[in-house]
């Protein structure tokens, strides 16, 4: 059952920030996650602040430096079918297309996709888990098939977003409006590891809202993709995935950014893989070495050590498909 809440629909970002600064206020973009969380009583809301009246949070436009500005309310469907994004930032287009289902992509927004709450069944279910302020992380001794093999500590969620890893790979920046004005945060720095604070997923402070995502211009000789492995063909989160943003020169990798999804509480950048790739041709040997490097240091639990071969396989396939 939905809780009883006040509903406000501000007309300006300033009004929205003010409304969101009130205790118990929740931002409502596409609502595909918010409504489910409220209905399932994952958290409460005193006020639901609709962002739908904020024109400045909408639309896709070019920036002066040949980059792209994506309003936070841009739907996943808009991103998935946008020809320029598919050409210049393919990892993002593929990430958006891989999320959820057609209905959810029509409704779900980019900002919401980054700020969605974890899908861990203990967090979502009738369990007083650590992330909800309770005691244990039930996954450690429990059913952890879909949980983290990297970056867990007191809480072992995986970040559910399919656009976050591509955005980190693409060095995107989030513009954030808040009570103290606006600020820019690289998407790579947007997310919070449980070791830092296991009750929040982003660095957003009360009253803050993502207004837009800025993509830097496409890389020279750029190649990229997002590969997602899932248990079901649609409406499912990543068991493991990888976003690649490579810059090629003379048939070799000039620079690489490689970010895993579905394996850690945040988009999981793997610098070891980037090092393996630098200066190498994309051949079977490189791909195999990169795959090995991708899972170095993984700490699987009782039910998720399959993620090691799965991630290796996904990285290897992803790299070879760009060769």
């Amino acid at each position, binding site marked *: 059952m939905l809780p009883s809440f006040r509903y406000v629909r501000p007309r300006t970002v300033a009004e929205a920030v003010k409304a969101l600064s009130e205790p118990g206020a929740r931002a409502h973009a596409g609502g595909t996650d918010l409504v489910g969380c409220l209905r399932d009583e994952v958290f409460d809301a005193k006020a639901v602040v609709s962002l739908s009246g904020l024109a400045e949070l909408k639309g896709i436009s070019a920036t002066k430096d040949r980059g792209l500005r994506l309003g936070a309310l841009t739907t996943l469907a808009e991103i998935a079918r946008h020809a320029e994004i598919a050409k210049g930032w393919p990892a993002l287009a593929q990430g958006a297309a891989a999320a959820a289902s057609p209905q959810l992509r029509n409704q779900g927004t980019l900002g919401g996709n980054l700020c969605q709450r974890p899908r861990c069944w203990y967090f979502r279910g009738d369990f007083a888990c650590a992330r909800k302020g309770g005691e244990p992380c039930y996954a450690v001794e429990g059913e952890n*098939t879909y949980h983290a093999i990297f970056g867990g500590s007191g809480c072992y969620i995986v970040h559910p977003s399919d656009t976050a890893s591509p955005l980190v790979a693409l060095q995107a920046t989030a513009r954030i409006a808040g009570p103290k004005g606006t600020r820019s945060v690289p998407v790579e720095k947007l997310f919070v590891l449980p070791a830092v604070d296991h009750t929040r997923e982003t660095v957003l402070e009360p009253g803050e809202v993502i207004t837009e995502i800025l993509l830097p211009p496409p890389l020279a000789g750029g190649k990229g993709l997002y590969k997602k492995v899932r248990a079901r063909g*649609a409406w499912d989160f990543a068991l493991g995935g990888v976003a690649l943003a490579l810059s090629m020169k003379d048939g070799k990798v000039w620079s690489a950014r490689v970010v895993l999804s579905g394996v850690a509480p945040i988009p999981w950048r793997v610098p070891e893989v980037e090092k393996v790739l630098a200066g190498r041709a994309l051949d079977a040997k490189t791909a195999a070495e990169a795959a090995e490097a991708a899972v170095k240091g993984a700490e699987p639990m009782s039910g998720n050590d*399959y993620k090691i071969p799965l991630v290796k396989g996904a990285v290897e396939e992803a790299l070879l498909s760009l060769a």
Partner: protein
Amino acid sequence: MTDLLYWLQGAVPETPAPKVEMPPWGETKVVGKPVPRVDAYERVSGSAVYPLDFALPDMLHAAILRSPHAHAVVKSIDTSAAEKMPGVRAVITGKTPGTDIPWYRSRGKSYSKLFDDRVRHEGDEVAAVAAETRAQAYDALKAIRVTYEELPFVLDPQKALEAGAPAIHEGTNRYGDPSKYERGDVAAGFAAADAVVEGTYSTACEIHAPMEVHGSVVKWDGNRLTVWDTTQGVFVVQQQVAAALKLPLANVRVIGHYMGGGFGSKLEAGKYTVIAALLAKMTARPVKLFLSREEVFLNAGNRPANTMKVKIGAKKDGTLTAIEFLSMGSGGAYPNGADTSFLAADLYTCPNVKTLDENVAINAGRARAMRAPGFPQGAWALEQAMDELAKKLGMDPVELRLKNVPKVSQRRGNQPYTSTGLAECLRDGAKEFGWAEAKKKAKGDGAVKRGVGVASGLWGYGGGPPATVVVKLFADGSVNLNSGAADIGTGTKTIMAQVVAEELGVPLDRIQIEHADTGTTQYTGPSGGSKTVPSDMPAVRAAAVEVREKLLKAAAEEMKLPVDDLALSNGEVVSKQDPSKKLLVTAVPGLQRQQVLVGVGTRGPNVEGKVISMFAAHFAEVEVNTKTGEVTVTRLLAAQDSARVMNRLTFECQVQGGLVMGLGLGRTEERVLDRNTGKMCNVNWHDYKIPTALDVPAEQKVHSVDLVDTECNTAGAKGVGEPATIPTAAAIANAVHDAVGIRVHDSPVTPPRLVALLAGRGKKG
């Protein structure tokens, strides 16, 4: 409850044979044709009123408080705060007078009560509230203070049998003694074998997850109760509700016109109906009580998980010499069937067979019959073992099965089948699928490997009595068809109308269908077990034939011709000898005088000394990504023997649905219980993964072998619901094995499970 599933136990009550002669149909005009559903417009336009849509003036909404614990004693319940909440009109618990109602009966014993002070699984009923709105009812549930004393729980049937395991009921955790079957000498059979395969297979617990959640709307008029229920059988609900409330059957009217799926989970009355009735009585208001989706996951049945140990021996030429099949399952916290061994003892010719089925209590939601109860599990184990055997013998899996097609039902005293299409399903299916070509095709040299698999199955119950149907011919030649059968989405109404149209020559749109209402229609069993067509259509036919005979007799008097010379055609009675002699149906004086002709048809007994079974062979093609464990089912083909196909369209729909459901068992569906709390982790449609359109192959073909069976019943049709889903999962697993050489013993075949096996990390077979 299980006692009601009598058709699964082979004992059917006898009813009188129909009074009319019904020779097998020759060429048919309406039956068998691809006729669109008579209620298609209502269903797709939204004008069909499902019980969940139903509302009455002044109606209250009820909700049930359920145990959050897997096993606990309810020490105390304080409802005082809840009773004062806005809109709350009644709160009931096990202490409320009139709630001391035994529930979950099996073998003459009750295992619980409507509200028990001992809760045995997450979701067990503790209290209930009726309020002006649904939100108020749910808010009030939160205000009920319950003190629980938590008890140790057990989720694994094997562990439930160990010494010191938590006792879920008085005495043993076994639901009765293990059921054993043996024929021949199994040891000698294995000794005589040239090849023996052995393995342990398991299937995950599946949830029925029908589109429409379970629930009822109830209303009292004095001491008479009317129930609008989403059900597969109104008469079952009537009997159980009447027994629970100690009312005569005449005081309980159950109406179940449209319903949004059941798959076996709606073959009984729910506690919710009785709780709603008690709340309605207390408040003197109609009450609506529907479960939430989460409650359906926890407490509206499931297909139990099973572990099955299979051993098969065969001669070099593929002749089976021995089968041993040991099954362990759990009906859940309360008794329900969990046996899986039937296929192993009946599907193939084998002189030496030993089976054992154990059924054990655990602290999880009770199972309910789920589309072919026990059979998809049994096929998962048996048909993968047969695949292993074929490999060991160097035989084609289709050939191995063909070598062992049975002529008689060995499990049922070697009685012959009225018809057996197993060989045809395998042969025609292989041809339609392109099996030989597909086997020859390369597996692929990249990371993605292709493979094909086959599995077969049978469903052993061809319906039977009792069923009584009334057909009325009105003075204008239009017809009323009155049958108690529920149309659970399979097209029952349409097929009944086709039978009437066939016998009376009336267009379908001139037939009014009145069904599934204990107040106005006649008794029949619930729609389940693939038995609606074979049980009800003969009764429909008998009723229609009786009307026709009465009409022709009346016409014969008027036309002064012998009855035998008359036939019905396009609204006219016509002489066969001299077609120029005819009389409009509406001009038959006998009809006009009485304004109605009534025919009453019954379902006669089944043929003696024979058994009725439906057969199927399913073929699957898959692509497996050896790097990631991803599986794509690229093709499925179902070859089915249901004897006569009553309607090509509804038949195809049923088989397509069966394939998708089988694909769910094989590929995606799995109830996950938290080992430390006993609570269900995936209580929603995201985490409990029903296949989506992208998981279903683009090419999914349905083939009927169209055998003529004049003995199964007077409609010549054996039914199709269950056999359409029995072999699918096993066929997919066999295809995966063909592609990558890995035997996935445990369902479902998910990327986590498969990639671990591919990497040598998982359990190997």
